[in-house]
């Protein structure tokens, strides 16, 4: 039986891991993720979850444990944030290169220096090119759902997935979350079937040194060189969106909630102006859209739930009607602009050549409050620029102080 509980985002992530019957957990606490390993420790120590919990001494080791446990066929779980994720960076490449279906919630937090424990998305956006898929959540229900969905997708594609959600704004905020029964989750997500089994009679050297050019094995079959392995990862990521859609269709059938669209859309049908954003900012932007609509501005929101693989074509179509876009981001590629802004422009160039006015806004770094008034201001500025035909040189920082 489904039931509704009032949970924080961290509790939802931990409960999702339990429902997915993860077999090995390795995690190191970091604010604002700490509650996830705490809750999971309790599940394991009380015997409610049959799993090996490895209380590692660092995030680098957390991912090291997950990689090797996954290699021998276990369903594995970890979670982190900010500098913990940055510390894992080397291992993230290794996990994706080794094609391991690891699922990892990231409670998004700003990176030092200077220190902040509060929310932005610089941590996970900076891991964009590691070969992991990235899902972004808007509320705590999505955290629970996306973790369950992520295991199904990851194990089908053999690609690891980060399930990202805003630190404190979601990790520490309580919301009602509909909890599926264990039987429902078991039916949706059967036990992990690893693609190969360890056999002492047929030993293998996993993740060995690979040469540039293909080399023949003793039977004369040409085996891939380094680029061959890397190209396969890219090809599988290019073909991953339909797999997400297919899994989402099965998810809707099982649980009634619908994630087939990699985009969250609010009031987009007739919109001339769109906020393009990610994560819980999508909800804040939706509130602002209601205010703008009261002013008579046909505004809407497009929020990306899937950032890797990048849904370029779907996003291009979603903004095709609007002639004015404000891209609101809690991260920046220093020296240029927000990653989403760059990628949106690239998608338009490649897919339909649509050239709306696009203004990029950097907001909410280090937990800075994003006020509806700020977003209203960004909308007015972008609309004004569209009328005057002015273009933006550099991203604008909203809520800037001293």
């Amino acid at each position, binding site marked *: 039986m489904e039931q509704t509980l009032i949970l924080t985002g961290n509790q939802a992530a931990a409960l999702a891991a339990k429902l997915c019957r993860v077999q090995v957990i390795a995690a190191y606490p970091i604010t604002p993720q700490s509650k996830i390993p705490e809750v999971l420790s309790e599940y394991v120590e009380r015997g409610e979850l049959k799993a090996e919990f*490895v209380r590692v*001494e660092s995030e*680098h*080791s957390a991912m*090291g444990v997950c990689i090797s446990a996954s*290699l021998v066929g276990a369903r594995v779980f970890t979670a982190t944030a900010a500098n913990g994720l940055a510390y894992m960076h080397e*291992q993230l490449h290794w996990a994706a290169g080794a094609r391991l279906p690891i699922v990892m919630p990231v409670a998004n937090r700003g990176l030092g220096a200077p220190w902040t424990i509060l929310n932005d998305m610089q941590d996970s956006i900076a891991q964009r090119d590691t070969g992991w898929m990235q899902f972004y959540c808007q509320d705590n229900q999505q955290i629970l759902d996306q973790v369950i969905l992520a295991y199904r997708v990851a194990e089908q594609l053999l690609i690891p997935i980060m399930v990202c959600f805003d630190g404190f704004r979601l990790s520490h905020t309580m919301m009602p979350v509909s909890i599926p029964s264990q039987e429902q989750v078991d039916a949706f997500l059967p036990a992990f079937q690893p693609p190969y089994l*360890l056999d002492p009679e047929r*030993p293998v050297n996993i993740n060995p*040194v690979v040469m540039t050019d293909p080399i023949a094995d003793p039977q004369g079959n040409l085996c891939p060189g380094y680029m061959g392995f890397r190209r396969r990862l890219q090809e599988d990521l290019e073909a991953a969106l339909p797999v997400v859609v297919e899994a989402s269709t099965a998810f809707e059938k099982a649980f009634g909630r619908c994630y087939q669209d990699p985009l969250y859309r609010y009031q987009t049908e007739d919109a001339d102006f769109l906020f393009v954003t990610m994560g819980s900012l999508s909800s804040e932007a939706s509130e602002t859209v209601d205010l703008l609509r009261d002013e008579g501005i046909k505004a809407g929101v497009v929020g990306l739930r899937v950032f890797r693989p990048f849904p370029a074509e779907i996003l291009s179509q979603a903004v095709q009607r609007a002639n004015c876009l404000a891209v609101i981001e809690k991260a920046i590629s220093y020296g240029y602009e927000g990653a989403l802004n760059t990628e949106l422009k690239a998608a338009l160039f490649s897919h339909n050549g649509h050239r709306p006015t696009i203004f990029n806004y950097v907001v909410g770094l280090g937990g800075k409050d994003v006020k509806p008034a700020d977003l209203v201001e960004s909308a007015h500025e972008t609309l004004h620029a569209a009328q005057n035909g002015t273009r933006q040189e550099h991203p604008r920082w909203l809520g800037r102080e001293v």
Partner: protein
Amino acid sequence: MATAILDLPEQEFVMPGTRTCAGCGLPIAYRYILKALGPKTIVTLPACCLTILHGIYPKTPIAVNAVNNTFASTAASASGLAAGLKATGQDDYTVLAMAGDGGTFDMGIQALSGAAERETNFIYVCYDNEAYMNTGVQRSSATPTGAFTTTTPVIPKEQPKKDFIQIMEAHHPAYLATTCSSYPGDLYNKFVKAKSIKGTRFVHLAIPCPAGWLFPTKDTIKIGRLAVETGVVVLYEVENGVLQLTGKTLSLARSGRRRPVEEYLKLQGRFKKILPEQMESFQQQIDLRWEQLLGRAGF
């Protein structure tokens, strides 16, 4: 008594065709380690000389399952293997983690300390060739005083070797042993024993390296023996805090016929610039440790 060569198991897990340098001590030791541990072994290794030994895809001369991992995470990988094998009901495998002195004394120390403190069920071998040999003989914290390396090219290393075995003993592992590739019987016995014990087992394995230590490739066994005969390497094992000398070291302790360190140092080109006072200090350090270890062993 060390197992006699003729009494070792015949099954080979290190096939001909390894890619180590000529005269390398590592494949000699690895052969007996795997004979002792048997086919149900899974080895995890970082980027190191052992990676070279394991060969280039799609071929490998090693007939046990192996996992390559990042430099700093050998013991974390072993923790993952132990946890994953247990969680999936495959825990009849022996998990063997094996890294060089760079991957152990230096970059791997954090993960190893963590895994040992967690009493992870695995055997960790540090094969110590006293510098970053795989990358071209750069100084490590295991390099002894007076040795020149490619990052101490003009002034030989001034600091003494890190006493890593003591660091590991402070973790109170279930089993701790030292051994050397020149004594296959001693080495084999220790791995047979290590396999029979549960928990964290740490083995320090001294490996002469002709390419980095600058001696003729025919002398690998001789140099390893001299290391033991001079007391630079002391063969022992520790269980429940009790230290026992083994093999050649035990007979040296009984006979008192330890050789001067100079005999070991003078055969290696890496020590050609060692100063007389460094040589003297080296001998004093070896004497002090010899007395301490023999005292603990009841001599």
